[in-house]
């Protein structure tokens, strides 16, 4: 049932990467429980604008949980407490009248803050640039059905490929590691026959890039898996580790 609630927000405000930030308090009244969390922030922003104060900057785009652009830590949890949900799909019916909600940006060395809740996640693109692809120039492909992929393998690859690159796994990890993000991409491609020729090179280069970009290491906290809005399994990290060991022992990749 639709109802309205009143909430108190404590939102991280920071004007740029080098300036000091602080939590500011706002009241959001008569919020319909059918609203998404971001629609609630829209309402707050409209009020801030009309009272000649700067609206809260936050990244968002598709608002249907697939583009991976949105993300903030809500009450200490990336994308909020609802399992398997991005913040744009988190609805206010998940909260109660009178709640105080703390909203903060992703915090990780590799993700400098741009403004308020918006952070720079270009480090994730750089990990992909290091090898998160199959080298197949346009036009060179054979008939699609010449490559067969067992159904269960295709399904596993799809499970890993569902990653939206939002960075919640990094924000959740006490080491700010991008192991789940990298593991998902490496698994997706290593599982498929098309991805095998480059598998050793891919895992070696991507992991090196991850280290260079300032991401931490994995210490099996499993926070990433718990907070991933697409519920990507840490099995993918295990698979990446196997690929890494395999590459180290049985390939000539440096």
């Amino acid at each position, binding site marked *: 049932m*639709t109802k309205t609630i009143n909430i108190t927000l404590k939102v991280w405000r920071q004007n740029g990467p080098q300036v000091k930030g602080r939590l500011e308090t706002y009241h959001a009244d008569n919020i319909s429980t059918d609203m998404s969390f971001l629609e609630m922030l829209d309402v707050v922003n409209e009020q801030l604008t009309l009272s000649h104060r700067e609206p809260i900057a936050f990244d968002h785009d598709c608002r*249907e949980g697939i583009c*991976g652009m949105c993300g903030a830590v809500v009450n200490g949890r990336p994308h909020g407490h609802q399992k398997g949900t991005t913040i744009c799909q988190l609805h206010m019916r998940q909260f109660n009248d009178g709640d105080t909600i703390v909203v903060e940006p992703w915090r990780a060395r590799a993700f400098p803050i741009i403004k308020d809740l918006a952070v720079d996640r270009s480090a*994730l693109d750089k990990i992909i640039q290091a090898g998160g*692809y199959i080298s197949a120039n346009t036009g060179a492909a054979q008939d699609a059905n010449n490559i067969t*992929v067992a159904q269960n393998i295709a399904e596993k690859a799809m499970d890993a490929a569902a990653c939206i690159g939002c960075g919640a796994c990094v924000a959740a990890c006490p080491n700010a590691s991008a192991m789940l993000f990298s593991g998902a991409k490496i698994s997706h491609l290593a599982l498929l026959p098309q991805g095998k020729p480059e598998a050793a090179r891919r895992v070696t280069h991507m992991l090196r890039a991850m280290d260079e970009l300032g991401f931490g290491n994995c210490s099996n906290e499993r926070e990433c898996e718990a907070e991933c809005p697409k519920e990507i399994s840490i099995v993918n990290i295990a698979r990446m580790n196997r690929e890494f060991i395999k590459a180290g022992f049985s390939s000539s990749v440096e």
Partner: protein
Amino acid sequence: MILDGKVPGGPLAQKWEKHRFDLKLVNPANKRKYKIIVVGTGLAGGSASASLAELGYEVKTFCIQDSPRRAHSIAAQGGINAAKNYPNDGDSIWRLFYDTIKGGDFRAREANVYRLAQVSNNIIDQCVAQGIPFARDYGGLLLNRSFGGAQVSRTFYARGQTGQQLLLGAYSALMRQVGMGRVTMYPRREMLDIVTINQKARGIVVRNIINGKIERHEADAVVLCTGGYGNVFFLSTNAMACNVSATYRCYKKGAFFANPCFTQIHPTCIPVHGDFQSKLTLMSESLRNDGRVWVPKDPKDKRPPTDIPESDRDYYLERKYPSFGNLVPRDVASRNSKVVCDEGKGVGETGLAVYLDFSDAIKRDGRETIEKKYGNLFAMYEKITADNPYETPMMIYPATHYTMGGLWVDYNLMSTIDGLFVLGEANFSDHGANRLGASALMQGLADGYFIIPYTIGGYLASSSFEKIDTAHPAFENSEMTARKQLDKLLSINGRRTVDDFHRDLGHIMWDYCGMSRNDDGLQKAQGMIQELRVEFWDNVLVPGKNEDFNQSLEKAGRVADFLEFAELMIIDALQRRESCGCHFNEAFQTEENEAKRDDKNYRHVAAWEFAGVDKSPVFHKEPLDFENVELSQRSYK
């Protein structure tokens, strides 16, 4: 002026091959001397950037999001068509071509659509080579499903995330080129203007969204892949940043805008539920394969759907269209939802919804099968509405989804500005007056992977380029104009927010230029838009400054363009004295209330030339000749 689409001669099936031979080639060693700018990184822009860089061109790619992987192609759910005929059910290039041209109600160019069908098979090959995890059968071969009114199963899919997977494929190819230093990537940039020098597109001016810096970039050709303008309706299934600004500002510089009134209203979206709503969410059309659409027969029947017996339900699509049933094309399905809701039979709190019921499919195939096919869609629906579609029917209503109109392009995908190419949803070329399901992904990738790499070479090899740099007065002018507008927006300091104006504009467009249109409404809307535009420039409140991450300022620029562009849509809708596909003018309908075309007088593309903000645009047409198909009244009975 009669526009020339530059369609090559010869038989339809050989046109593209002949044309590829006729196009001049750029010597491999010379390719690196040419700079190409690509704006947008959806399926069209991502695939074009990667493919052009692979050929050796120096590519600069721009996107509005923080990463090229986030373009709105990512949200496409259902699938991608190709004429592989793997299921052995009678498909062919000719059939895909015919279905697409007929689905578009005979308002697209034959040669373009045929080429699209021809290259569709290469797209699937390319995507599989990249590692796209398409659905597969137990034997390891690719699976297909029937989609959106097609009577063959030609749609390839990756669960309900086909767009995401295809985009990540193009993105990974693009990242590979960035890693190798062949593409320079500029994320978080918004295009403000196209720069033309000696009648050629030679660069762009962009705003760095993070710090407000205005940047100039020069090139030998510009490839625009900036998507559609569905957000003119405020509420749509488009992402929040989708806008008309890039294409509209090219229009203002001389690129003709074609068929702007052809906008698609998708039948299966989650209904609107409140004024605060920021966007609408599509439920993939594939749901209509197993879901049955119905409303109560009696408008007064307010029982919960599960309590309404079979005999009191009206499965209106199955009743009116026995051979296609729930799978009629999008425009037909949408209009029929509106009709039953206008009759008072709509359901839900607002009365603007119909049921999409899976109970029969669950009974027939079991919950597990349905979960496997649509699990993620059902979960998404439940998250948004708090209803469980396994137990109670979904409620759906049409929403703006795709825009068939766009910048006019010739067979080479070049606009009326030399050197400005337009790909994907941003152009008008392949879908006529209505796009069929699973065709947008096909067109975006066809344009980017398999068409632009050839046609841009032809242009570069047959043109001469003077040396320019970004100090050229044309760049200076563009930057000045853009700065002036940004300053103006920030200085008005009025009493209404940007969203407030946008929402008003959306209501006008939805009410008068939506699923069903009439002359009185359109004329009224034109006046309302003009008034709203005047008020906007007098009373908008944009906080902050330009030299900052200022999301209100970004939006303000986009809404300013929508306020001008909306009027162009109205003018186009008034010009077309017929109904066709998604453009339904109530004065032109058959006895069965279907769109009634006027092939004698309106078998053309309407292309508009900018003449000034408060001046009427100049009308041009490209007649459409159909040499290979017979124009028929679409019938889905």
